């Protein structure tokens, strides 16, 4: 729907298969920001999710409303209940003229460890039903430091293709020139408010020149946050090492198999030579029934890719917070000297 001319009828527009322009910006209403924050904060440290409603306009995805999901329980009956809840909520919101078009979902995270297989599966599920969908991630643990930790993510097209065909083996990845950085795409977020809200908030803004946000930012102790970040980082490193071991094991098996194959082939050839001199028919040089010719499946690289992504994320966070601490410390120093 790049720019449908007003003269075209709905049918015409509907029938023309248009190439969707790539998603450039996610435009979120302030209302949605507040709703997400409220929901995620109330239940922190439990992780919660909710649905995003909005409109898909060209290369901008507008998120105009959202509603929270109840905390999920592993029970089929309750799961059916959850689906009912979702439909009911959508119906109710439509009645008060809210856009009832699903554009994705939001979820809270703890210190940014959101790159999981579940997220990818949920994304693929959503993607099946809606062409353009986005996942908004909010980190309540960072908001205490005066940072608005909102992120809009989507899976890259090349990744989705690979995932659908389950092609996470080295050769395919090399073919596509696909690296761990290409799994998620972060989309810039824009916040918009209606003029009415803008008027109210201007009126309600406190007179004081300092706000809670500034206060949080200037808090000197960021150490607990850093410590936990490093802890998680170390855990991830261990996981990654485990994954690496898996691959080493795989390669060792592979080379052992190749050696076995070579040995078998050599034996067969010498046998055949012997048979030839004896005037008998040579035996075939391949034997599919032999277990040493069965290809060993290569372990999927998805897990190690995701772990790598998480490590990169922790590194980024550490860099960000350390940068902030530097400025704080220098500020402190300057103040003290005065």
């Amino acid at each position: 729907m790049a720019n449908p001319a007003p003269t075209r009828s709905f049918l015409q527009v509907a029938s023309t298969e248009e190439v969707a322009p790539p998603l450039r910006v996610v435009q979120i209403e302030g209302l949605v920001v507040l709703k997400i924050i409220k929901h995620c904060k109330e239940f922190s440290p439990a992780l919660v999710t909710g649905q995003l409603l909005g409109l898909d306009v060209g290369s901008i995805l507008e998120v105009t409303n959202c509603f929270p999901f109840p905390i999920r329980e592993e029970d089929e009956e309750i799961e059916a209940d959850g689906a009912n809840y979702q439909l009911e909520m959508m119906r109710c919101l439509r009645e008060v003229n809210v856009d009832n078009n699903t554009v994705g979902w939001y979820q809270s995270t703890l210190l940014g460890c959101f790159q999981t297989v579940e997220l990818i599966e949920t994304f693929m599920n959503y993607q099946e039903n809606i062409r353009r969908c986005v996942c908004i991630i909010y980190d309540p643990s960072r908001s205490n430091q005066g940072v608005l930790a909102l992120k809009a993510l989507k899976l890259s097209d090349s990744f989705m293709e690979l995932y659908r065909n389950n092609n996470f083996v080295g050769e395919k990845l090399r073919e596509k020139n696909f690296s761990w950085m290409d799994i998620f795409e972060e989309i810039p977020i824009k916040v918009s408010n209606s003029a009415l809200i803008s008027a109210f908030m201007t009126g309600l803004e406190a007179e004081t020149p300092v706000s809670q946000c500034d206060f949080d930012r200037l808090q000197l102790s960021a150490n607990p946050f850093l410590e936990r970040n490093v802890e998680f980082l170390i855990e991830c490193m261990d996981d990654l090492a485990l994954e690496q071991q898996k691959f080493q094991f795989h390669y060792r098996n592979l080379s052992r198999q190749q050696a076995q194959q070579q040995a078998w082939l050599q034996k067969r050839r010498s046998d055949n030579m012997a048979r030839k001199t004896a005037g008998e028919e040579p035996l075939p040089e391949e034997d599919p029934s032999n277990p040493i010719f069965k290809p060993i499946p290569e372990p999927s690289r998805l897990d190690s890719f995701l772990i790598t992504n998480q490590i990169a994320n922790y590194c980024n966070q550490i860099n960000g917070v350390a940068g902030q601490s530097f400025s704080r410390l220098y500020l402190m120093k300057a103040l003290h000297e005065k």
Partner: protein
Amino acid sequence: MLTTERTVLQFTPTPSSTSLSAKVHPLVIFNICDCYVRRSDQAERVIGTLLGSILPDGTVDICNSYAVPHNESSGQVALDIDYHHNMLLSHQKVNPKEVIVGWYSTGLGVTGGSALIHDFYSREVPSPIHLTVDTGFRNGDTAIKAYVSVNLSLGENQLAAQFQEIPLDLRMVEAERVGFDILKTTTVDKLPNDLEGMETSMQRLLVLIDDIYKYVDDVVEGRALPDNDIGRYLAEAVSSLPILSPQVFDKLVNDNLQDNLLLLYLSSITRTQLSLAEKLNTAAQIL
């Protein structure tokens, strides 16, 4: 003895409504405004339910809301009660702690139909709060008001209901956390990241310090009248700094700096390692 026989005209305040106050979260205002913007063509105002809880000190904490469709014509108000109950059930599935605390309406002050709706909500919850949001800004600066209803009765007969305004706390700590810069303007192209946020905070701090310098200088030079309160605050702020010898302070700062540097170094090493590993991983497969 006579007084017991006499019928008296009296207000019967609902229990605990005497010293009631309310606190509104910014989300509620946002929600109401959004509903008002999205109201249907013929509707002049929107009405909805307020959800929240009652704090231990008796303050009503209004933290969520939803709109309820209604029809209004010539003094008659029809509220979609089914819708109200459905929505309430849905909201309580997510957060069972939130209960009905009252209702809201856009427009200036209390109107005739308000008493009817208030009656309905009184049956849902004792002493509901009525929040009005004047989306037309007809009344200057106080556009948001909260009321409770007090019954005026003559003996046993109820005569009327009076709406009394109650104090409303509009301080918005949550909004401050998010940043008014984002919520105030109609479009924000980019969310501030760690360092940019830090920069604005520091700039504000700098402005504050400059202001104080100027004020103190003015007082010392006799250009401005000294204010004891400000002086006390300043003394407090200065004395809140721990007294450390320069050596100790330097050591503290340097230690902290080094810790941070170490972490930075660690994270860069990790990154280098990652990119190296990726190169090796893809290369090693050519067996």
